[in-house]
């Protein structure tokens, strides 16, 4: 609470000396920080959050303890609502991902949008690959498109919610090429992969880390990667553009944000913290091990990025027939 009392002074100071303010006026956390994630232990955001905390601890970047707070439910809605309640609180931050943007578009109850919160920093973009079973007749993405055009609706893709990135990628591919295939939702990644390995569906759009070992052991084959440039681990898999399909890559961003009305010095503190953490060896190892694409942005650029992302998603989802509420 002390931070809140010194806030006006701080604001004045920042304005006067343009960020060169003496150390005593800067925000420095004095009690444990809370990092809110919207998935339960073991979920993607939870693992990312814990890795970030571990990297910060290893590099001794935070004077106080940071603890994970799992606010599960509503595909991010509970976590967003919780952060919105913490208006102006300098000790709470959260991990956002794409569903924080798409959920409020499609669900009236999810009434906290990214504009209500304070984006702090983008951290990573998750690449994706399209995989088929190793014994599948499809050798390229164009084989899939041709087959889907020949028999509309018979090919099947397993995936998550219709708001998730894999569903959005399908939508983009279908509207660009005119092919049609069906999408089957499964709640967990394990079930989606099992459906593909068991031959019950024909393809899946998946994060490279999740599919890596299955590709390496010859159970799955990657046909195309949804990246700007080929990933090191998938040197012989063409990007979408190289395969001749010229559509924007749908990013899966993950980053850090704060509650509404975050004071400028607090925002600055977290921007710096995340920037330093993203350069730490622990974080870089995590990014490498999980085949993520590091993409660190400051708060201003992150806001702009998220606005653009929302616009893109709005178009794609309404094109897919999802009823939008905002």
């Amino acid at each position, binding site marked *: 609470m002390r931070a809140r009392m010194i806030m006006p002074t701080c604001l004045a100071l920042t304005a006067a000396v343009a960020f060169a303010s003496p150390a005593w006026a800067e925000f420095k956390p004095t009690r444990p920080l809370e990092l809110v994630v919207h998935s339960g232990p*073991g979920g993607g955001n939870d693992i990312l959050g814990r890795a970030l905390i571990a990297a910060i601890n290893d590099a001794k970047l935070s004077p106080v303890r940071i603890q994970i707070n799992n606010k599960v439910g509503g595909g991010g809605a509970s976590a967003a609502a919780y952060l919105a309640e913490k208006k102006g609180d300098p000790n709470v931050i959260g991990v956002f991902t794409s569903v924080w943007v798409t959920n409020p578009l499609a669900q009236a109850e*999810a009434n906290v949008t990214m504009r209500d919160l304070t984006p702090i920093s983008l951290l990573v973009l998750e690449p994706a690959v399209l995989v088929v079973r190793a014994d599948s007749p499809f050798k390229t993405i164009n084989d899939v498109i041709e087959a889907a055009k020949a028999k509309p609706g018979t090919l099947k893709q397993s995936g998550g919610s*219709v708001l998730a990135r894999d569903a959005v990628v399908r939508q983009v591919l279908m509207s660009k090429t005119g092919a049609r295939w069906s999408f089957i939702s499964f709640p967990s990644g*394990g079930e989606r992969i*099992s459906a593909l390995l*068991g031959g019950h569906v024909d393809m899946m759009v998946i994060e490279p*880390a999740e599919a890596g*070992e*299955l590709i*390496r052991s010859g159970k799955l084959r990657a046909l195309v990667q949804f990246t700007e440039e080929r990933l090191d681990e998938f040197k012989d898999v063409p990007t979408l553009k190289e395969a001749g399909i010229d559509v924007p890559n749908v990013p899966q961003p993950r980053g850090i944000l704060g509650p509404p009305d975050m004071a400028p010095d607090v925002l600055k503190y977290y921007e710096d913290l995340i920037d330093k953490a993203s350069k730490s060896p622990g974080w870089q190892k995590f990014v490498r091990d999980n085949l993520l694409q590091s993409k660190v942005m400051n708060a201003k650029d992150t806001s702009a990025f998220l606005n653009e992302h929302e616009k893109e998603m709005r178009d794609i989802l309404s094109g897919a027939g999802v009823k939008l509420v905002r």
Partner: protein
Amino acid sequence: MDVINGLAQGFGVALMPANLMWCFIGCFLGTIVGILPGLGPAATIAMLLPLTYGMGPASGIIMLAGIYYGAKYGGSTTSILLNMPGESSSVVTCLDGYQMARRGRAGAALGIAAIASFIAGSFGIVALTLVAPPIAAFALSFSSPEYFALMFLGLALVVLLSGESLLKGLMSLLVGLWLTSIGTDLFTTQSRFTFGQSSLLGGVDFMIVAIGVFAIAEVLSSIKDREETQVLPVPRGLRNLLPNWAELKACRFAFFNGSITGFIIGVLPGAGSSIASFISYGIEKSVSKHPEKFGTGVPEGVAAPEGANNADTGGALVPLLTLGIPGGGTTAILLSALVLWGVKPGPLMMQDSPDVFWGLVASLYIGNVMLLVLNLPLVPLFAQILRIPVFVLHPLIFGIAIIGAYSVSGNLFDIGLLAAFGLLGFIMSQLKYPVSPLILGFVLGDAMERALRQSLIMSQGELSILFSRPISAVMLAIAVLILLSPLLPRFRQMKQQAISENG
């Protein structure tokens, strides 16, 4: 003999003093986590993960896995003593475990839970060791139509769980099916029955329903019946606290049933240990000579689900270790732990990191023995909890229930839900509606709806997909038989007559 060589190597790793210690620490923590309602193994493993960075993958996974299966052992303790499930996989244990405790057989129920856990847990590990690759292939052949048939089979068991009135049982089931449909629909992202509450978008958590309708409702009922002076009987003497021979004999089939059912359902990525425990309970009841006694405190009603949820562990590790596919939240975090240590879980893990793979498998054998040795002596100790006077025990149960509900999601809203479900359970018990069909409907309904819709998308709307595949056809046929089974007593009478006439 790859398996023998592998196991020998594995025991070499697992029997190192440091690893024995980590295994014990994991099992011990797991037991405690299992006992505490709300705090689950997934959250505990996530919290302890940073401490294992420096440990090396074999020691790390041995400890974290110990928490995973140790929690399954501990989960039954509060189910039996307080009618409050410690883990979702021990919910069904409340039905007969708590009734045994009320009859003064708390120690016996705890002992049977430990023994069933040991037997079925060991079976699961042996099966994991010997048949992991073929059984993983079987699991992959299981798809949405088969899941639908499995859940349908489970729901058919409601007929058996419904108690005296079939109509009341079915109404209770419908409430369960309704409750499970609350939240966001995965296929369309439409919200259902959320009444504008963002807290309901993620649906209602199973643990909150279970703690409410079992533990809170039970306390409310006993307050209403003014049981304040009546303390549950706890016999003195170690011999009276452990299961007797007759009780163990009654569980013979349950040990077998729990082992097989738990392992097979555990292998399936789309089902979990709570489904395994319910289905093995249902099977146990359907083959029993005295199905009417289930729910009044029969030992096999404890042995079957407690066995199943431990055999489930061995099953769930099959897709994790052979394919790198996690079946649930806890295995997902074990997977990310392995990645963190630089092990690559997947089809090549057995070749690339044999020390981790076989070290873990060997440690499961050791851990299971440790858990039995750890748990049996605790039985008499835990049984003493029932000596606590009611004016202390009831507030204690309320307190644990509220903390448990809050720790599931960290939402205050859930405590309100807990109170609502407590009232619901209380009203149902006053009006003599059974709550087990509600719980079963809640567990299976969601998975069943999903499987049906997935099947229909696969077949482009053809219902025949459900009957034309052999596994699903067989399961649906069994379900129909069960639904017709109320007609069986007459058939049995006729058969007995025929036998006696012949003999």
